[in-house]
């Protein structure tokens, strides 16, 4: 028989080996020699922390008692892992992008970085995990007891359990809180866990092979024996079967230690692809020999032997001490790896979500940068680890190892499973809200405690056995194991049904009836669209300075890491030295970085404290709007573009019309000009011919003819002058003769000139008063010409019996507006655009003479003088507005 001392020695050697492996892994991780550590095999093996002592010893016990039921505990995770693409991959991606440190952190981060939610999940996890840790201590002390039954000197199981708890706490403190790594990765621990995974698999396979081929006569005999020895009902495909599979599937995601190894410690999604088949394969191998061991144990060991210890007792009974020692080591590995990872996960949660927020609140009045966050975190984690193991030990002492191993495990599973609705809905449902998650978890937790956890103490804790029998306050509808009078025979199925249903009901109801806060919406989008184009560059606007941020960063992630981070960022921003600018993008990166150490809620609170705000603005929300909004924006932009195009097309069409019309006008003008030039030419030519050929022209006739010739040539000159004038004005070669002149005088002169040229005594020209004192620095001759042209046009085209022309002067701060309006026929709407063009003659111009240069000359003169002329559409007559600047 192996002595207790040898056993202790084996354990110590084994633990020393773990220490060395963990230390080597830490060292090579520091030196970035991570090839082996980054392999998917290490990742897969670390996930096998799922297989605890409960699996190692308890599965055989369960098979001996309940038939095939134990398989459900492995089938659930198998189903989750082969569906990795849809759930686990999303979790891992979110875990990496959001720097998630624990399941509580994930839930809190998803629901608006709510710390309350984080605290609730943390407490739930601690309550759910404590019995589980107690279970490991119990199985370890039981397995020790197997070897020490005959040894009077051996310590009692309670002391063994205490020593084990102390040893595990020491290991976890050393390797679990060595540093505050970015993203909370613990390479040393993970490698040690992977090694333990191999030990437990090898141990179980060795015992299994020994049992099948050396104790029994091969697999067929085992199967025949199984028919006889195992319970009649296999338990397969019953409601309990489905419930247990569901619970174990939940556990692989929601248990804090599973979340730690699957999500937090993962570095690549590719590893998940390997784990998707390798982890089910591991479970498959762990289960392969469970039934043979159970059957053989029942057959060869005396009646009443504890089936939970068959893995140890069969080799011992057959005298195979070294195999027994290996089996013991396997059980030891299973228990220790579970406890270590659970303690790390829980201590992270406790320190990030309970200790640190309390400390932050205490120091709120002071500057948050004034204390070293890192040392506080590390200290609080160490204390938490000791505290959690202490709690587990107390629980073990309290329950005294009364219940069968498996039942405690299942109770713990369901407790933690209350997080599932909040987690799943949070990943896929946008409207899942913080209040919904909180209500769901609290309702589910209460129902779990009432229907399963408290009844598991058989009336010795809080709920009396009387209450268990007749319900709370004697109300039979509230009987803990038959709520609302619905009789579900299996208490576990009953508890799962009610707790999960009521949890979901509360969750959905509150999510639908409450309005989430902006930050919640933002996080919901980040989580749900984690595979989409996500950018959180607009999260927080810069209010804080780089110096503040740097000090805070040093406190949280350490001097070296903070320096590296800031340096990298500064280089990215194109700065050669100094601190990077506190852009919103940088602040978001930094907050993520902090979240990797202290959790999302705390990181957010600290950044909020330093930047003075914690809210999200509407712009920031719009910037990260979901795809629908983006599509909508895109289509709106398209619509705008097409509208712009339509407007441009319309404008082009109008320009084209105008051009066509202008070209028409030009043609018309050319013929008009030829005509105009021809008419005086013709008369000059014919009269000069008469004078030339006829000698008998009398003096009187001669004088008349030569006067006609003179007049016509003058008219010809005038037309040519006009054309020349215009071309001069247009080319800008005209020389302005600027001097000061009274506007009133110019206007009066224009009126006189116009009247004289048209013999227009009956025309009523009204000049408004108060014009005499306006002095302009201008070319008076040119300006007068403008007025003459306008007045002449007004007289010339007026068809009224009593033409009225009004001249109004309006003095402006930096110029003068002279309005010339008449009561004539006006200008047709279609022509108003071309009247200032050269050669334009209005369609309604009638037979009146004119080459259509007057208004173009006016426009050109004013352009040269720095003013402008415009036609004002009015109902009666034509109105022209002339703008002359005071300073030219």
């Amino acid at each position, binding site marked *: 028989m192996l002595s207790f001392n040898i056993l202790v020695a084996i354990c110590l050697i084994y633990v020393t080996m773990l220490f060395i492996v963990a230390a080597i892994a830490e060292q090579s991780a520091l030196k970035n020699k991570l090839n082996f550590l980054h392999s998917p095999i290490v990742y897969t093996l670390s996930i096998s922390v799922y297989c605890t002592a409960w699996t190692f010893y308890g599965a055989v016990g369960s098979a001996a008692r309940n*038939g*095939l039921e134990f*398989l459900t505990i492995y*089938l659930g995770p*198998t*189903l*989750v*892992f*082969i*569906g*990795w*693409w*849809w759930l686990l*991959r999303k979790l891992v991606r979110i875990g990496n*992008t959001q720097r998630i440190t624990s399941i509580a952190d994930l839930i809190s981060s998803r629901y608006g970085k709510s710390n309350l939610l984080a605290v609730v999940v943390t407490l739930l996890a601690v309550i759910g995990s404590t019995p589980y840790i107690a279970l490991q201590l119990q199985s370890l002390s039981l397995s020790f007891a197997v070897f020490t039954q005959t040894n009077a000197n051996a310590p009692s199981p309670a002391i063994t359990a205490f020593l084990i708890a102390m040893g595990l706490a020491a290991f976890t403190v050393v390797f679990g809180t060595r540093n505050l790594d970015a993203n909370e990765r613990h390479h040393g621990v993970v490698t040690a866990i992977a090694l333990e995974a191999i030990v437990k698999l090898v141990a179980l396979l060795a015992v299994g092979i020994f049992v099948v081929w050396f104790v029994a006569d091969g697999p067929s005999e085992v*199967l025949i024996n*199984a*028919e006889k020895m*195992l319970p009649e009902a*296999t338990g*397969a*495909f*019953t409601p309990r*079967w*489905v419930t247990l*599979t569901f619970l174990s599937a939940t556990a692989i995601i929601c248990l804090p230690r599973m979340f730690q190894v699957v999500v937090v410690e993962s570095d*690549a*999604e*590719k590893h998940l*692809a*390997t784990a*998707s*088949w390798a982890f*089910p*394969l591991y479970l*498959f191998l762990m289960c*392969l020999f469970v*039934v043979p061991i159970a059957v053989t144990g029942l057959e060869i060991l005396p009646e009443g032997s504890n089936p939970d210890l068959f893995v140890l007792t069969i080799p011992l009974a057959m005298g195979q001490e070294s195999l027994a020692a290996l089996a013991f080591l396997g059980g030891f590995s299973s228990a220790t790896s579970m406890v270590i990872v659970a303690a790390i996960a829980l201590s992270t949660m406790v320190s990030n979500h309970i200790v640190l927020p309390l400390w932050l609140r205490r120091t709120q009045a002071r500057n948050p940068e004034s204390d070293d966050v890192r040392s506080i975190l590390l200290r609080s984690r160490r204390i938490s680890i000791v505290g959690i193991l202490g709690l587990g030990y107390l629980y073990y002492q309290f329950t005294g190892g009364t219940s069968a191993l498996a039942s405690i495990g299942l109770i713990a599973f369901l407790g933690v499973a209350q997080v599932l609705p909040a987690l799943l809905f949070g990943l896929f449902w946008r409207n899942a809200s913080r209040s919904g998650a909180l209500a769901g978890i609290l309702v589910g937790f209460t129902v779990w405690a009432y229907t399963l956890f408290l009844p598991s103490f058989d009336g010795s804790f809080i709920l009396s056995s009387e209450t268990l029998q007749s319900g709370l306050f004697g109300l039979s509808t509230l009987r803990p194991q038959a709520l609302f009078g619905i009789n579900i025979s299996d208490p576990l199925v009953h508890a799962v049904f009610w707790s999960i249903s009521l949890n979901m009901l509360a969750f959905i109801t509150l999510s639908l009836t409450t309005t989430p806060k902006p930050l919640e919406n933002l996080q919901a989008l980040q989580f749900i669209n984690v595979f989409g184009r996500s950018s959180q560059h607009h999260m927080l606007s810069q209010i804080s300075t780089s110096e503040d941020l740097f000090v805070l960063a040093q406190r949280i992630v350490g001097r070296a890491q903070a320096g590296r981070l800031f340096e990298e960022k500064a280089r990215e921003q194109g700065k050669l030295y100094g601190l990077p600018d506190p852009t919103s993008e940088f602040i978001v990166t930094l907050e993520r970085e902090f979240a990797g150490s202290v959790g999302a809620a705390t990181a957010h609170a600290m950044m909020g404290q330093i930047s003075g705000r914690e809210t999200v603005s509407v712009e920031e929300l719009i910037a990260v709007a979901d795809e629908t909004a983006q599509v909508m924006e895109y289509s709106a932009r398209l619509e705008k573009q097409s509208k712009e195009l339509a407007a441009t097309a319309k404008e082009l069409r109008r320009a084209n019309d105008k051009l066509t019309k202008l070209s028409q006008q030009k043609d018309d003008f050319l013929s008009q000009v030829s005509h105009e030039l021809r008419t005086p030419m013709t008369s000059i030519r014919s009269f000069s011919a008469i004078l030339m050929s006829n000698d008998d022209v009398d003096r009187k006739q001669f004088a008349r003819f030569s006067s006609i010739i003179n007049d016509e040539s003058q008219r010809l000159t005038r037309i040519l002058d006009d054309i020349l004038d215009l071309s001069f004005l247009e080319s800008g070669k005209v020389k302005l003769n600027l001097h000061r002149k009274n506007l009133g005088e110019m206007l009066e002169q224009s009126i006189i000139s116009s009247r004289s040229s048209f013999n227009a005594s009956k025309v009523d020209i009204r000049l408004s008063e108060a014009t005499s004192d306006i002095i302009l620095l201008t070319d008076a001759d040119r300006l007068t010409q403008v007025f003459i042209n306008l007045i002449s046009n007004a007289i010339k085209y007026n068809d009224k019996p009593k033409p009225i022309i009004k001249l109004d002067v309006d003095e402006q701060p930096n110029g003068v507006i002279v309005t010339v309006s008449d009561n004539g026929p006006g200008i047709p709407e279609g022509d108003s655009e071309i009247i200032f063009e050269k050669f334009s003659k209005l369609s309604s111009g009638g037979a009146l003479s004119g080459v259509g240069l007057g208004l173009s000359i006016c426009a050109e003169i004013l352009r040269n003088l720095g003013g402008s002329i415009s036609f004002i559409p009015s109902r009666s007559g034509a109105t022209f507005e002339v703008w002359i600047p005071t300073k030219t």
Partner: protein
Amino acid sequence: MSEKQSFDAANKKTRRSRKKREVALILPIVGVILLLTPILRSFTIGNETSSLTSTLLFIFGVWAVLIAAAFILSRVLIPEIREK
């Protein structure tokens, strides 16, 4: 013509990768149907030999097939992973 061909090829490619991802969804559903629904009891109870052995073999058989399928699927899906 060539443009149409390249378009068809691209279309085919996206359709194929979508199909791969859909297979990833189908596998756990197949697993649930085979391992959790009581309909499958007909496979095991109707057998002449006792139910325990056949149930055990059935479950382990399905399990092994699922693992093999997951192995193949993971090989197929690894190129689809786009890590940042």
